[in-house]
């Protein structure tokens, strides 16, 4: 017998957003970092595409910050429909603008309805945040504070990776602070950027297959976990 409820219900599964904030400043061209980051994000999206066990629709957005400020490199899109295009690295590190853009996105109830599971925010940077003119700046503090005190964005799960020796640990630590479970900052060099994304993919995939995707389990420290042998 056909469902009498069908014409009154939403025809899609609930969404779990994964939003990447990617530093594409000029320094990301050194040691091939941007190329490795491109491959790592593309691999993560492919893992989501291939995951036949997921009980939620994983949607991915990529916000880049570099030359020209913060922009949507990929708007929030079902992972299954994304055709990855490589990011290009150039310019400064306007991280504050990226925080403002992601807050706008998460607070938009039309784009991310309240029936969604909470978003995952992933910050990747290799340097010190700058202002519009390229000078090192603490202007990220105000933007991050707004993000962390907003109605919805404050409830997102937040991951962070710092690449190389020139990172600003204060901003990365502040980004992941005060969550329901402790999520450490992942520190990387160009050889283990992919490792971080495998860890994030593992966390998202585990919850997307879980009976209650809103339950965040304690995560193993990615700096010590051997992820090379994990199949998702």
């Amino acid at each position, binding site marked *: 017998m056909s*469902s009498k409820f*069908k014409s009154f*219900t*939403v*025809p899609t*599964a609930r969404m779990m957003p994964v939003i990447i904030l990617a530093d594409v400043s000029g320094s990301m061209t050194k040691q091939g970092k941007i190329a490795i980051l491109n491959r790592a994000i593309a691999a993560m999206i492919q893992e989501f595409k291939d995951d036949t066990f997921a009980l939620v629709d994983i949607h991915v957005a990529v916000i880049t910050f570099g030359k020209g400020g913060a922009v949507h490199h990929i708007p929030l899109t079902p992972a299954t429909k994304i055709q990855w295009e490589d990011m290009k690295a150039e310019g400064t590190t306007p991280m504050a603008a990226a925080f403002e853009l992601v807050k706008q996105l998460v607070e938009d109830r039309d784009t991310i309805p309240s029936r969604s599971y909470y978003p995952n925010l992933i910050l990747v940077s290799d340097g010190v945040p700058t202002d519009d003119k390229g000078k090192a700046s603490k202007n990220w503090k105000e933007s991050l504070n707004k993000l962390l005190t907003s109605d919805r964005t404050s*409830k997102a799960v937040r991951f962070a990776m710092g690449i190389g020796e020139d990172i600003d640990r204060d901003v990365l630590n502040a980004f992941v602070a005060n969550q329901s479970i402790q999520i450490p900052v992942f520190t990387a060099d160009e050889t283990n950027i992919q490792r971080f994304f495998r860890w994030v993919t593992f966390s998202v995939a585990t919850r997307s297959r879980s009976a209650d995707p809103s339950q965040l389990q304690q995560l193993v420290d990615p700096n010590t976990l051997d992820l090379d042998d994990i199949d998702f």
Partner: protein
Amino acid sequence: MTEISNNKLISFGASITGSQHKRDRRPNEDAWMGGQSKFGTFVAISDGLGSKPNARQGAKMACRAVKDALRHWGNSVDASPTLLLRLIHILWNLYVLPASENDSATTCLFAVISSEGKLVMAQLGDGLVAMRKADGTLHRLNFERTGFSNQTTGLGISRSTQDWQILTLPVLEIGDAILLATDGIAEDLQSDRLSDFIDMLLTDFAPMPPYQRWQALCRELREFPVPNHLDDKTLSVLWRQP
């Protein structure tokens, strides 16, 4: 005020265990109750918060607390709705003992038509409380969720009656109906089709014999047409039939 004959008020509902709890071999952590007594006719539903160990009992006790609070409240002349809510909190706190309030946290939604015909609809936590007027217009309690799925408040979390959404009307008019639904249903309903959804429940389900209606509703909820639906699901209806 004109009294409404009890046989002109119909209440029904159903609740099923979601696939998430079936897989985990956990019981249904939603509950519902409906009934008539001297104070009037009511329906109540509740959704025990998933991560809490005593959620099932908390949800069941929420419905019982509503029923018992209405009995006391309905005996008092001119008692305010706030007093009713305070009674619900107190009774629920007693009923969940020896478990802690926090371990038993649950949403609580109800509607009651007093024997004098007065309507009270109230909501604490997520879910849906909506009234469809006989002409098709819809009024819903505006319990705005600030976060995402499965993040809410309820008995055992809230400490204030101000956290409730409440609506009182002097009378429920002929043909008006109220729908209560837990978020396993409410989140997946198209908001612009809500009035039609209630109308369908009144047209297709309300006329059935009670047991057959309960079976039919349970079947609809088990076969809920949303991909990968996981949550327990509960709805109930209170209707002043023509």
